[in-house]
């Protein structure tokens, strides 16, 4: 496949002009997946904190606290990389997403600022910062979905497309809510866990709607994607993908039903299943889009910066990658399982 792509472009597979954009696209996809999943449970818990009973909200936010520094960086890294590696796609992608991207910017701004300010605010003012964090999470989740809804239909405009984008936004809020709720039921026992199970059971249906909706609409709105998936020789890919997705949904629903009376040992199962779902959907989207950034219009090679700039970017990535890997492993290393309370500090003497 790599050879044939290179041949279509008239470049050798060893040519930097061919493989560098490809490498950057891979890094970009990795950052996007990390952002959706790792920042995702954060967004989800934020959305849920709006509907949680008042007494549980501080605990929900303090559960997020250790990951905040790492979680909020994925989007930065993604944008930085997109600017350095694919500057010529900005007007064709970001330029067509004025409303969803503005909502995303507002949501992210509110989330980052309100969470940290709440930590440092006196108790009587914490409620409003908490609300700001929840509102920001809601906006972020909605904007992600609405963006996806606009991208998969090729940025077409019209009342039907707007409706689809709004519906996708709503379903994505549910999807992030599901991710957040399953993470919560793994991290915490007691009332919060029981509530999280209820939220997850409500959210999982709308997550299914989002997954199926985005796949079907993408498939039928673009002939190229339809052909790619409908190709007879790759029938097993379609079967395996949908089979895996269906299995994840069914298993997640079953474990959620048994969750309340279940032992604490299996409480990570729904979270892992939901992670798999997200992975499958994102992987499917990437497979459908490859090698385009805008379907049928802009490929990653059209959008890529010149080779010299890419080389510069690659060397910067080589410097930053060890830091990123060590830091992220170090931070995320205890995100599974039940939350352990912090140890009290030891005072010498």
């Amino acid at each position: 496949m790599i050879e044939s792509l290179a041949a279509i472009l008239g470049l050798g597979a060893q040519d930097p002009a061919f493989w560098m954009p490809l490498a950057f696209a891979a890094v970009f996809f990795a950052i996007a997946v990390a952002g959706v999943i790792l920042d995702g449970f954060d967004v989800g818990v934020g959305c849920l904190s709006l509907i949680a009973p008042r007494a549980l909200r501080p605990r929900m936010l303090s559960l997020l606290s250790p990951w905040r520094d790492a979680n909020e960086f994925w989007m930065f890294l993604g944008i930085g990389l997109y600017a350095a590696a694919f500057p010529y796609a900005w007007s064709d992608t970001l330029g067509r997403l004025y409303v969803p991207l503005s909502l995303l910017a507002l949501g992210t701004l509110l989330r980052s600022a309100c969470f940290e300010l709440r930590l440092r605010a006196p108790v009587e003012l914490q409620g409003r910062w908490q609300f700001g964090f929840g509102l920001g999470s809601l906006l972020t989740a909605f904007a992600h979905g609405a963006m996806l809804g606009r991208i998969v239909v090729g940025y077409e405009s019209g009342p039907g497309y707007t409706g689809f984008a709004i519906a996708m936004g709503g379903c994505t809020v549910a999807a992030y809510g599901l991710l957040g709720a399953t993470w919560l039921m793994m991290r915490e026992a007691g009332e919060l866990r029981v509530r999280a199970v209820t939220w997850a059971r409500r959210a999982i249906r709308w997550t299914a709607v989002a997954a199926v909706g985005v796949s079907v609409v993408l498939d039928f709105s673009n002939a190229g994607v339809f052909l790619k998936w409908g190709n007879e020789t790759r029938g097993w890919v379609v079967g395996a993908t949908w089979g895996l997705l269906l299995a994840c949904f069914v298993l997640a629903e079953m474990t959620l039903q048994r969750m309340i009376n279940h032992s604490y040992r299996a409480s990570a199962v729904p979270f892992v299943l939901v992670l798999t779902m997200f992975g499958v959907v994102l992987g499917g989207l990437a497979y459908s889009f490859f090698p385009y950034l805008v379907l049928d219009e802009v490929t990653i090679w059209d959008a890529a910066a010149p080779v010299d700039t890419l080389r510069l970017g690659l060397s910067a990535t080589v410097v930053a990658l060890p830091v990123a890997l060590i830091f992220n492993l170090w931070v995320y290393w205890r995100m599974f399982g039940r939350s352990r309370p912090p140890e009290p500090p030891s005072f010498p003497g």
Partner: protein
Amino acid sequence: MTQTALFLSLAQFLTSFGFMLAFLALELGLAWVLLYFRLRARAGGASPWMLAYRFWVRVYALSLILSFAAAIPVLLQLGTLWPDFMEKAGEVVGPLVAAAVLTAFVFKSSFLGAMLYGQRRLSDAAHTLMVFMVAVGASLTAYWIMALMAWTQVPIGASLVDGRYQVRSWLTILGGRLAPTLFGLMTVGGLMVAAALMLAVTAVRTRTRPSDEGDRGVYATGLRLLLACILVQGALAADLGRVLMPAQPARAAAVVPQWHSGPRADLSVAAWPDAERQANDWEWGRPIEAPGWLARDPGGTVRGLDHFSGMTPPVFATYWTLRVALFAGGLLALAALAAWWRGWRLGYEPDGLRPLGRGTLRLATVLACAIQVAGLAHMFIGAMPYAIYGTVTLRELGAAAPDMGEHAGITLAYVLVYAALLLGFYQLLRHITRYGVVPVARRRGRA
């Protein structure tokens, strides 16, 4: 792009960019001030400097949070408001943006957590090193941004080929004549606001309780720092003018304001420029021999605003942003000198301040902020209608036809959110001024 749409886009962008830069500058200034406190605490072994560090590290954290959070909207607005900016200048802008993001990432993930939450686990020397590295990281991040801003003002080091800029020399872009000056202005501006804030907070804190040694130290440090900053920023601003005015003759003409070409410059100290009549009301000043930085024809005629066939910045805003910065600078210098004179006679003792003195010190913060904001606004507005000076106008970069209702609504939402955050910052600052700081903890993996 209609005039209203352009105005809304500009308002939206300048609000978020200004908000980010303001808190980035404050963060940068406070980072170096904190390093000073930390070093003093290490050298003397006395607690007052450590107390000062603990208090001001909170203000630092607040401004860091806000500048960091405000960076995302700025980056996304490059895509939503000026989609063709990357199309035309991606080769220059992309790497600079990525460098700023990566620098922030590397320094934040390696050192910031240890500085803010790890003091107990680190030795004294190691923690001081962390504070130093955080300050270096903030400076580097700011340098990338200032290099980008300098490049849009005087685009050297890259050439426009087929509608796209191609980099000729990174060294020229990064180290050109303007970038170090702008970086210096930003650093000194941040230090100035930090110093003024130190004075104001000390003045308010000692109103209700007697001052301790920490207060006196912060007061004296803040006052000396403020005076030094005023001097250095004056020199840097003059240097900036020497580079910028010849490079951007339309800005120079608007600063005078030279409405018509003529033999002499109509330089005024203050006036009410009226763009429709192309004349000034209530002018205070008189025609003089043209200074060297004004553009002239070979014949010696001073080029007026009528010379640039409409490619001129909005005169009133260009004129007054500069005047506000200069007048506020003068007032601030007077206030600082008065406080210094008082300190020299009576000692740097905030306890003895009278209400008028305390009020003046609080006003000094407002003045210091006004200088920076007006200066920044002058940088941007004076370069209009260009986004990249001399080649690319803002209008070319704008999105084709944003829906006016959506555009106005989103701009309003931005303004409201920024206002709320600013209010929150002020509220928290007032709270810690009154009640002091309770440290917050963040432990890895545990909650």
